[in-house]
């Protein structure tokens, strides 16, 4: 419609304000550089889903739902279940989200969260095989942004792992899934990967950027860590760069922060 989307733009006064505050070692909302906003996590929020969770990072809200379906395995891993991660950035959650096919940003969230789950071998996919090469459980993890206030990655990945931990396997009768009748079997989860995101603004690096901080940031670094303290996925975003030292420091910090995040699960 050709309307300028002002919500994607921050005034220079506000930009300068955020940058100057950081130079004094402060953030707009009073947090320290390595602090998360208040984290709230609720599971079992959608009863038709096989598992679900709602995460609030301050006022940033993301919901994740898990649905299981019977399907065919991939031909190169015939004895393993299938994982699919998808993100919906619906226009309800932000004036900058548009309806229509998935945007570049939503694809990136899906793929980065997916890598964290997949590469940590979080779900024991081998246990989801029903008949080798024929029938396996397909795990669909759907991320739904509800109120976008910055740092989708961390909120989405935390919601996803919480929803997976909340997932019960539905009953099968005559090759059909009887939804609503869950078995006592939980989804086999053997690792809890969590993602921590840092934003670089000038020479300062801050954890869990708010929406305003994201609009000012030069670059972003998301790091997924496991309970063992290993790194299982990373993604740099934004138009700027990171020095090697900055990357290594962010990794050390994210391993510690990951432990903190896991206490909410």
């Amino acid at each position, binding site marked *: 419609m*050709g309307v300028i989307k002002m919500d994607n733009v921050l005034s220079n006064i506000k930009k300068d304000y955020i940058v100057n505050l950081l130079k004094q070692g402060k953030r707009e909302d009073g947090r320290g550089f390595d602090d998360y906003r208040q984290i709230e996590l609720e599971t079992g929020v959608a009863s038709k889903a096989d598992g679900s969770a709602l995460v609030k990072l301050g006022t940033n809200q993301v919901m994740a739902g898990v649905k299981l379906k019977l399907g065919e395995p991939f*031909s*190169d*891993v*015939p*004895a*393993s279940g299938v994982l699919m991660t998808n993100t919906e950035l619906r226009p309800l959650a932000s004036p900058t989200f548009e309806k229509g096919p*998935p945007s*570049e940003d939503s*694809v*990136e969230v*899906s*793929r980065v969260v997916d*890598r964290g789950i*997949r*590469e*940590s*071998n979080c779900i024991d*996919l*081998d246990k989801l095989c029903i008949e080798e090469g024929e029938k396996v459980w397909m795990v669909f993890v759907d991320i739904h942004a509800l109120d976008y206030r910055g740092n989708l990655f961390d909120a989405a990945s935390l919601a996803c792992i919480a929803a997976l931990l909340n997932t019960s396997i539905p009953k099968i009768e005559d090759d059909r899934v009887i939804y609503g009748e869950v078995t006592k079997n939980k989804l086999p989860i053997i690792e809890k990967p969590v993602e921590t995101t840092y934003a670089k603004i000038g020479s300062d690096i801050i954890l869990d950027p708010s929406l305003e901080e994201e609009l000012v940031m030069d670059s972003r*670094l998301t790091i997924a860590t*496991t309970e063992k*303290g*290993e*790194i*299982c*996925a*990373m*993604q*740099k*975003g*934004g*138009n*700027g*760069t*990171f*020095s*090697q030292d900055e*990357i*290594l420091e962010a*990794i*050390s910090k994210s*391993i510690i922060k990951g432990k903190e995040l896991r206490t909410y699960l």
Partner: protein
Amino acid sequence: MKKIGQPKKFIVKGKRLDGRKPDEMREVKIKAGVLERPDGSAYLEWGGNKVLAACYGPREVHPRHLSMSHKALLRCTYNMAPFSVNDRKRPGPDRRSTEISKVTRQALEPVVLTNLFPKTAIDVFIEILQANAGTRCTGITAASVAIADAGIPMKDLIPACAAGKVGGEIVLDMFDVEDNYGEADLPISIMPKTGDVSLLQMDGNFTEEEFKKALNLAINGCKEIHKVQVNALKEKYGGN
């Protein structure tokens, strides 16, 4: 997880399955200015990869509402030819290529002086004609030569290279078997003048120590690639 076709060993007597040492790169060749229509172009062969990159611009922005009053709009499109991989790739964009296009743009953005060309677009197209692991790195490497060939001012060239872990060892520049069955992949790109990292992705599993080693190896790889990029431009334009 049981994967069909997984080799039992990746490194035998210090040599990788394709005969290289762990820190050895595949052969890289770059030629600048290979296409007639684009303003700048580059052709790259890297191991079994064959890649074309083209740059158009600065030119008018379509659709016009995307144009910016303070800088040029940089757009990158990464595309794989359907015949570039073993299983035919369905033509058109998918989630993977959408993400790679985005990280490619963000890898190049720090060096292109977009502020010199407000209200214009600089479009970069990367076509993977033959793929053998590490295509996003080959794409970024070729694209930055194509942008330079188009005469667009840049602070630096952007070389990209991946390191990873196979059979428990940190190796440089994986080829397809290592890429498919290896334990970790870390593609990066750098600005050679400062050593700052403009592309960084990683999947698999690394300890902190292993990551450090892989990052160093990949950065050294980028520096080697940088020399090839410079030579390609010298070959076309002369100079030192």
